[in-house]
């Protein structure tokens, strides 16, 4: 069981939150020119990392706001919690980045 610290409300049980998919995905910018394959990649293909992964979460049974978590999917250890718009690089605090 995880305890997650909402950047707006503080520490709460994981039961208050919802996982909302991987963070920092980039939507293809020219929708009309994108092939079905590229759309499929964007919509459905996942890194599904075993290890450290950037994720979006929502404090759905709390303030309702979205934020990012850098989390180890093997151990459930939370390495960093950062607001929407803040880059994963800054959160990770290292050079190799996303």
């Amino acid at each position, binding site marked *: 069981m995880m305890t997650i610290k909402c950047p707006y409300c503080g520490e709460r049980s994981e039961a208050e939150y919802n*996982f909302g998919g991987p963070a920092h995905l980039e939507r293809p910018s020219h929708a009309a020119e994108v092939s079905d*394959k590229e759309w499929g990649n964007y919509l*459905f*293909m996942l*890194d*599904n990392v*075993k290890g450290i992964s950037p994720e979006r979460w929502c404090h759905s049974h709390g303030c309702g706001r979205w934020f990012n978590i850098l989390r180890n999917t093997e151990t459930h250890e939370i390495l960093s919690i950062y607001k929407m718009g803040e880059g994963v690089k800054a959160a990770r605090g290292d050079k190799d980045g996303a």
Partner: protein
Amino acid sequence: MQKYSTLSLVRNAISHHNGWQKAWRNPDLKSEYDAVVVGGGGHGLATAYYLAKEHGYKNVAVIEAGWLGGGNTGRNTTIVRSNYLFPQSAKFYNFSLNLYENMSQELDFNIMLRQAGLLTLLHSRHDLEVMRRNINAMHMNGIDSDWVTPDEVAHIAPGINMSEDARFPIVGGILQKRGGVARHDGVAWGYARAGDALGVDIIQMCAVTGFDIKNGEVVGVQTAKGHIKTKKVAIAVAGHSSVLAEMAGFRLPVSSMALQACVSEPLKPVFDAAIMSPATGIYISQSDKGELVMGGALDAYPSYAQRGNINTLEHIISGVIELFPCFSRIKLMRQWAGIVDIVHDSSPIIGHTPVKGMYINCGFGTGGFKATPAGGWTLAYTLANDRPHKMNEDFSLKRFETGAFIDEMGAAGIAH
């Protein structure tokens, strides 16, 4: 292969059970195979067996990181059924159930299939209407499915809360009489033993660590016990599919998540059928040993940690107590989880990968035990012929490009 029979039991009893052979060999890894199956769960073992039996492959290895059936095959709640909604799924899962019905004979191994029925409970007028439609769809697809009245539910499941004041009152049900449970380890062991007898090398405690790919074609497999030359690879690693795909340089539409289950202390027989209740989000059956086997929904975020969290367990227990208040004082004995491979339309992926010579079986998520024989059979067919069988052609990776999904959340609510 030593034949198991009443006679062999008697004969071995007389010789103090010293004459039993090992169920399968423990061979050394060879440096070259005609086909390599990655993953020694039910699907991988079935794939190897059907490659040997149906397609004449004499030189096949199954490479398993841990021990046979130590993944989801040995962790599931063993429900088998075929009451799916769409024609492709109906055909596929019914084929699987047919293979199950004959499996103990075919493999000469008792898989303890008990077809005492699968009862899905309906709790609202909306449930009734949706199920009327689904049951018609199932009949059109040739799947047995019976309408069950509340009185019949009370008869099938003694102890169930039939009060009209219940939070989730029971207004009816549907019953697939051919549904039921089987011994999960037995399925893995049966396929392992029969495959071994046909020459399949089963290599345990040996993780695959990489692939050799030349010009988009697989030419070798790297493992903890050494290198293998091969031109054909079948991957059946469930929750680890994305990890293997990454080794081969492609991605999959798969999320790995924990699904948990638990069992109670053993009780005297209460009911025979497996019971599902989509509205309370739980399902329950009683094992041959008398334990209540209970499960529910996923821990709804990615995880490779093989453990379940306590709030999901609480949901499962509260759902069970809602349906069966009489179970409230029973002790829980064990709880565990497996890492399952979830895809967007709750249907499997069986077929080609972007790498030539490499095929995959994944995406069974919370419900692939019942598909073990068909998943292995179709993967073996696809590898041997380099094209999918009619039964799995719509379950290809391509659908995540074309959008031709087979969205199966429908047929029974929770997809076990």
